[in-house]
């Protein structure tokens, strides 16, 4: 919270600096020429090219004129020319862009490509080129800058209006039969005004720099008139003798160039477009605080995790998203973890796999992968341990594969590093694995990039990839959620096949029917906790927790009465802010009593391999109504 406040503070102060700067600049532009234009032009022939003195605050130039007064007086010329050119460029450009939306499709295309060409040339070159045509001088420079700026505004107006035009309410007013011009003026322009104003503000800063540059080169304001750019050029000639004459106008240009940017930020903040902060509170407790228990003999468990807690940074300190998660896996098991989104099932799996976000904090009473606690290893050995014992399959195969790397290279890099296979051996293995997951023409596919594969094929390639290092355990995190239902079956079949080949599989899903199809054991999670664990075959008959029952009821089956609305679980899962001392499911639970909201029920063993955390578990004898018949 503290950090957030600080951030917002910086933003407001930026805006304040910008506004204050703008006021000072404008006042100077108005007042300075009235007060000092005389003093700025009077030569003091006794004091040529002098440094700072009481008489001349910033010294004098080659003709003995006072630098300070000249810089102050020049504010008006520099600012007014910049404003004039930026605003006329913006107005001209917007008109151009807005008018182009009234053109036919072909003409619009031509217009866009001409704009693209125009925009691809350096602004400064355009400005110089135009000032040659318009004529060298202050007026010419303004026209040139305005013309050079117009296309970017035209492009902006075009993009913005076309994005607005395609919105629903424009179609609505179009249906009402309004004319195009009226739509443009009444409905399109107001919606694009804000980004345009913002860009005009930035353009003022840009115009100031261009005009100063032109004057600096001698192509802008001509003597006897003067602006900052010209003063800078004159000062540069005598920079050895009196550097202040060059530095003072330079500083003025920088300041006046930055002020519009700050003002733009202020405007943007007013418009409520806040940048998404990339930094969040990250107060990680020292690693030493993490309790590392003595290594215990863990028998033949592939994975043994007890009392796992995961906390991630939230607005006010750390929020625990996983509490007391346990998972013990033996060889050849297939276990499902089920829960609504936000129940902590993915986070638990990521923490188990050591892939939690870098700011997350993890504690556990027991944490062993293949008999070793990876947290006690150095990074290299820990990576090797994980690579050989655990493979991962993620939800969206499109985004989970590197778009720039050939499929074969992505498959084989793991074994090349962790099993020291040669390039060709790794390639052969990759081809075999692809064939194993029934990808046709596997050899040929190795050279292709992910986008050349279909969605189902990509996920099969992911499965092949997770099998490359021959791990004993695979964690599949919602492996079919992003896929078509038809492909879902194939993927589940492949996972089941891998399991019958002796690989332990942890399947994470929000879909309990999917898990009951293939898994032997089911872990039900709610609000970061395990609420029930039992054998899959018992779920339909012996599930004790009301939440598990509710999950089952929300699955339609062949026997579901289609006349009735599909059962849903009332309410929403708790968010991190809904802290409660009691059972987190209580607010949504039909069996909840007073005690449920006061104390959290412990996870208690109710039978062999069955645990439940509930004060009022559903009696086993009751057959759940509407439960899937299987």
């Amino acid at each position: 919270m503290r950090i957030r406040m600080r951030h917002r503070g910086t933003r407001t102060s930026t805006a304040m600096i910008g506004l204050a700067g703008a006021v000072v600049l404008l006042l100077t532009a108005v007042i300075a020429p009235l007060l000092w234009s005389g003093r700025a032009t009077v030569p003091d022939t006794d004091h040529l090219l002098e440094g700072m003195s009481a008489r001349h605050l910033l010294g004098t130039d080659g003709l003995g004129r006072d630098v300070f007064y000249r810089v102050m007086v020049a504010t008006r010329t520099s600012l007014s020319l910049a404003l004039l050119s930026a605003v006329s460029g913006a107005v001209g450009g917007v008109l151009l862009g807005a008018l182009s939306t009234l053109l036919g499709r072909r003409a619009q295309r031509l217009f866009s490509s001409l704009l693209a060409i125009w925009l691809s040339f350096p602004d400064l070159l355009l400005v110089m080129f135009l000032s040659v045509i318009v004529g060298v001088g202050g007026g010419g420079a303004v026209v040139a800058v305005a013309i050079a700026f117009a296309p970017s505004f035209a492009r902006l107006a075009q993009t913005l209006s076309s994005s607005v035009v395609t919105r629903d309410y424009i179609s609505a007013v179009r249906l009402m039969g309004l004319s195009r011009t009226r739509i443009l003026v009444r409905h399109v322009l107001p919606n694009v005004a804000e980004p345009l104003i913002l860009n005009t503000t930035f353009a003022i800063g840009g115009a100031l720099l261009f005009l100063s540059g032109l004057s600096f080169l001698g192509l802008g304001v001509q003597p006897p008139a003067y602006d900052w750019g010209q003063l800078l050029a004159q000062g540069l000639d005598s920079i050895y003798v009196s550097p202040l004459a060059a530095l003072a106008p330079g500083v003025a240009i920088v300041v006046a160039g930055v002020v519009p940017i700050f003002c733009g930020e202020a405007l943007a903040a007013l418009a409520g477009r806040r940048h998404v902060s990339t930094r969040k509170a990250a107060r990680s407790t020292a690693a030493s605080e993490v309790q590392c228990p003595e290594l215990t003999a863990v028998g033949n468990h592939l994975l043994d995790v007890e009392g796992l807690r995961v906390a991630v940074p939230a607005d006010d300190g750390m929020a625990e998203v996983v509490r007391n998660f346990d998972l013990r896996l033996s060889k050849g098991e297939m276990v499902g973890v089920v829960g609504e989104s936000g129940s902590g099932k993915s986070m638990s799996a990521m923490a188990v796999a050591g892939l939690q976000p870098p700011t997350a904090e993890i504690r556990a009473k027991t944490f062993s992968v293949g008999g070793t606690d990876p947290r006690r290893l150095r990074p290299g050995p820990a990576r090797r341990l994980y690579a050989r014992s655990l493979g991962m399959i993620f939800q969206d195969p499109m985004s989970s594969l590197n778009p720039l790397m050939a499929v074969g290279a992505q498959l084989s890099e793991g074994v090349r590093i962790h099993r020291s296979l040669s390039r060709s051996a790794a390639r052969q293995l990759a081809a075999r694995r692809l064939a194993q997951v029934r990808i046709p023409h596997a050899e040929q596919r190795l050279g292709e990039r992910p986008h050349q594969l279909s969605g189902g094929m990509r996920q099969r390639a992911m499965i092949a990839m997770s099998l490359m290092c021959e791990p004993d355990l695979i964690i599949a995190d919602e492996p079919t959620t992003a896929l078509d239902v038809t492909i879902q079956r194939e993927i589940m079949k492949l996972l089941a096949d891998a399991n019958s080949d002796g690989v332990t599989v942890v399947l994470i899903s929000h879909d309990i029917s999917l898990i009951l199809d293939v898994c032997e054991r089911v872990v039900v999670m709610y609000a970061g906790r395990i609420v029930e664990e039992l054998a899959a075959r018992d779920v339909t008959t012996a599930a004790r927790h009301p939440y598990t029952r509710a999950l089952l009821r929300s699955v339609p089956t062949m026997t579901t009465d289609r006349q009735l609305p599909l059962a849903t679980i009332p309410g929403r899962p708790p968010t991190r802010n809904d802290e409660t001392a009691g059972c987190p499911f209580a607010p949504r639970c039909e069996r909840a009593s007073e005690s449920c909201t006061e104390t959290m029920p412990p996870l208690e063993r109710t039978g062999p391999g069955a645990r439940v955390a509930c004060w009022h578990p559903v009696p086993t004898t009751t057959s759940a109504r509407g439960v899937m018949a299987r």
Partner: protein
Amino acid sequence: MASTETAGRLTQSGPLRPGWVASPWLTFAARRLGRLVVATGTLLTLTFLMLHLVPGDPVRSSLPPGASAELIRAKRHELGLDKSLPAQFVDYVGDVLHGRFGTSIATGESVGSIVANRLPPTVQIATLAFLTILVIALPTGIAVAVLTRSGRRWWLDAPFTFVTGFVGAIPQFLGAVGLVFVFSVTLKWLPVAGRTGVASYILPIVALSAGLSGHLARIVRVETLVVLEKDYLRTARSKRLSVIRTYGRHALPNILTSVLTISGMMLPGLIGGTVLVESVFAWPGLGTTLVQAILAQDYQVVQGIVLLLGIIVLVTNLVVDVALALIDPQSSIRST
């Protein structure tokens, strides 16, 4: 939503003739070539028209004040200015294709040889500046992104944003003046102007690259943060690759594709910036020559230089586009 999009795309591309499938590469090449031709045509037209639009009569101003009408007519004929405008344009394009860019009215030297003399110094500092920008911005941006990822080391954020923002806000020619003041006038370490040896390259290159490095470093950081959050990076981590391999093999190429687009767009700005920076350092390049020619109303030289710089910009843009299309198979650039 997705299905309507696909449908839209299908109808847009239109029915394909049976037996003939348009290779995306062919269409891409054809489009780019077409655009290059149109852009070059526009450039030629503009530079041609420039000579006719400039105030004053180039023929009169090239002759002594009391020149006879006869002499003026002869000169006009000699320059081909008595022909119709379209005919003159055809002459102009023909001349350009044959490498004839006219002669300087001020010095009588051929524009071709002026440009040939002045181009190398400009290309040198522009190229060196571009490399400097990449060498500074890429490692800095990536390092800061990795270090500050998901809220770690938040104290690094403000200094980075401030420094890059500050450096990026100083226009190149002002930065150049500041550099001259510090390193040439005050410290007397480096020459104040001219092209007199290796030391004289330092300040122009720093002046050209400092601001753009700041800009690019910020962009690189944002792009890196985006890539670091991608699912395929999580996949790479799940393969337990070394840190160097994870970032080098999986993150870097993806960062580079997006950064390449942006740095490509920076090139025109760099070319524009050289004009001003050259003027500060009296660098004997195209920029100073262009400014002198404009001031001397030596429009043949202006025309030649504008044409050349324009073509350089067009070619760099093309090279960047092609490079992008080659690197990134999914790049939308190929369909534009």
